[in-house]
């Protein structure tokens, strides 16, 4: 098992290489660079050209790439062109915001999806099941952006004002509150973005759980268990639910990856200072040193999510061994 995991990590390295390569090629094809639009229009052309030369922007992409990779291996992530500070600093300031937002969003996802999936499956073909189906269709029909805007209009200071908009913690609480108050203030600030990010993820989980439960309920081994005289409530927990949770459990890794990459949109909608918004800002400002590292990070996260799924599957399902 440990060997397998190690091997899977090693396989990741060439995968990540390919991703960074593709990213560099794409970036080199984009119009404009870090200096476009940032400079004083009165600055003499030869000065700008000198700056380009100094920043290495005039090198062909493959040379830039080689330099970048070489730097990465030496722990040098590069300099943000907009912030004029090391990339790791710029990202480090925001990554925890995204991390907590992601965790919160995941928690909400499963808090909504698990009970709904179980109920829909347990009471399939009843009114309750149909009500849950309506929830699913509404969630499906509502893109993240639209949901985010709706929530902002309803609950942010624009609407009822129940939840703050922008920022991660209120300044007053931060300066004078107890750690618990600070924590609650953070949750308060993250609530709307977290819900927005969670809604899409719940759909797949509910669907999967419901379908599995319905399928298992009609399975031969459930009939056999019933024919043994096992009470229904025991059968539901031991034979139906447990078996139906396997695909859900093994899907967690993917949902994690999906949630974190999904924060890009959520952070943009809610003006939330995390790495998702940093990513979009950096793209529009052509701050490629930051973009590159973030792409690498998101790719790594996705790969780890897939691996995590496989690991969970081998733990919970005796039929599966990862290779």
């Amino acid at each position: 098992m440990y060997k397998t995991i190690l091997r899977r990590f090693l396989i990741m390295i060439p995968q990540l290489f390919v991703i960074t390569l593709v990213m560099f090629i794409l970036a080199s094809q984009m119009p404009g660079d870090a200096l476009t639009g940032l400079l004083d229009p009165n600055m003499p052309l030869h000065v700008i050209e000198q700056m380009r030369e100094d920043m290495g922007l005039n090198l062909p992409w493959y040379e830039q790439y080689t330099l970048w990779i070489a730097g990465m291996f030496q722990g040098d992530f590069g300099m943000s062109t907009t912030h004029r500070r090391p990339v790791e600093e710029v990202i480090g300031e925001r990554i925890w915001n995204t991390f907590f937002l992601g965790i919160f969003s995941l928690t909400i996802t499963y808090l909504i999806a698990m009970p709904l999936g179980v109920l829909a499956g347990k009471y399939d073909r009843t009114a309750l099941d149909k009500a849950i189906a309506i929830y699913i269709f509404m969630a499906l029909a509502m893109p993240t952006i639209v949901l985010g805007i709706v929530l902002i209009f309803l609950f942010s200071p624009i609407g009822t004002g129940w939840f703050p908009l922008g920022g991660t913690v209120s300044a007053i609480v931060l300066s004078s509150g107890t750690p618990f108050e600070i924590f609650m203030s953070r949750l308060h600030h993250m609530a709307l973005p977290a819900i927005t990010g969670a809604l899409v993820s719940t759909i797949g989980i509910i669907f999967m759980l419901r379908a599995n439960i319905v399928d298992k309920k009609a399975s031969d081994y459930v009939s056999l268990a019933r024919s043994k005289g096992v009470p229904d409530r025991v059968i539901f927990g031991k034979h139906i639910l447990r078996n139906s949770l396997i695909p859900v459990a093994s899907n967690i890794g993917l949902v994690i990856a999906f949630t974190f990459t999904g924060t890009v949109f959520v952070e943009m909608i809610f003006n939330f200072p995390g790495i998702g918004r940093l990513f979009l800002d950096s793209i529009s400002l052509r701050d490629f040193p930051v973009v590159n590292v973030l792409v690498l990070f998101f790719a790594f996260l996705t790969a780890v999510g897939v691996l995590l799924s496989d690991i969970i599957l081998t733990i919970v399902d005796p039929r599966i061994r990862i290779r």
Partner: protein
Amino acid sequence: MEEKQEKALISLRNLQVSFKIEGQYYNAVDGVDLEIMPNEVFAIVGESGSGKTALALSISRLHNMNYTRISGHILYNDENLLELSERRLNKIRGADISMIFQDPLTSLNPLIRVGPQIEETLVYHTNMNKTQKKERALELLNQVGIRNPDVTYQSYPHELSGGMRQRAVIAVALACKPSLVIADEPTTALDVTLQAQILDLLRALQREMQSSVILITHDLGVVAEMATRVAVMYAGQIVEMASAQQLFKNPRHPYTRSLLASIPHADSENDRLNAIKGIVPTLKYLPRQGCRFSHRTPWIPQSEHEADPKYHEVSPGHKVMCTCHETFRFETA
């Protein structure tokens, strides 16, 4: 009611089982009367779709009752099982009546080791402690002919072959020495050599334990080998019922005769011609009036059938649901 020498173990009276399809209930079992005697192997034969499984599952009410209706009487120990609460029925399921299903590959929970799945029956019907249960499970595995019970006990179902799994399922069924075992095509999913082994095992265990077995099959060869009595089922009804001997010697219903004609070792040219073509209509399209078999014997003029076929006694213990059972003739080529 006539006095019987021996009291039936279980009696089905006018049993009806219907399934909800698109909001309407359709009968898959339509007025079945049966008595299973102690210590007998009672076979139910019929093509796929004739309602054998629907009948089998109704006995201990294993259907999903959200879209199944069962009516009539299932008398066991002077109680109508259909009127028992789930709780009371659970005392009977597994202890008195147990089941063996068709597909050994799907009959066991893939996430639970074989041993505990056998013990699960003991949990709900005995006061055995952990070691006693394990002992009993190992004993059962041994009894069903598994050579390394300790290994099998610890195995997950996917680690066993189909034959081994069916043996394990039989061990589950026999755990509490039930008085009735309902085996729904227990060998259909297995290859031929395994079929014989599993049937031999079933028969040996039945003799040893003196239980009754309802053996559902569409293989008349199996019936000839094992059964004391046979019911032939078609479209939810029992169209002929007799002792196994009688049925093979003197089949009366055209459907029975057709089934007999289609078994491989019926070697005469004539017999082969007598296999009646067609299949059982699906539930929704079953004819609900007149003889349900008439559409497969179109060469018999309508005037020769009863509007509503009733049972005719051919000889004591041999009844047939066909008006013209004495005059019936096969289509001539």
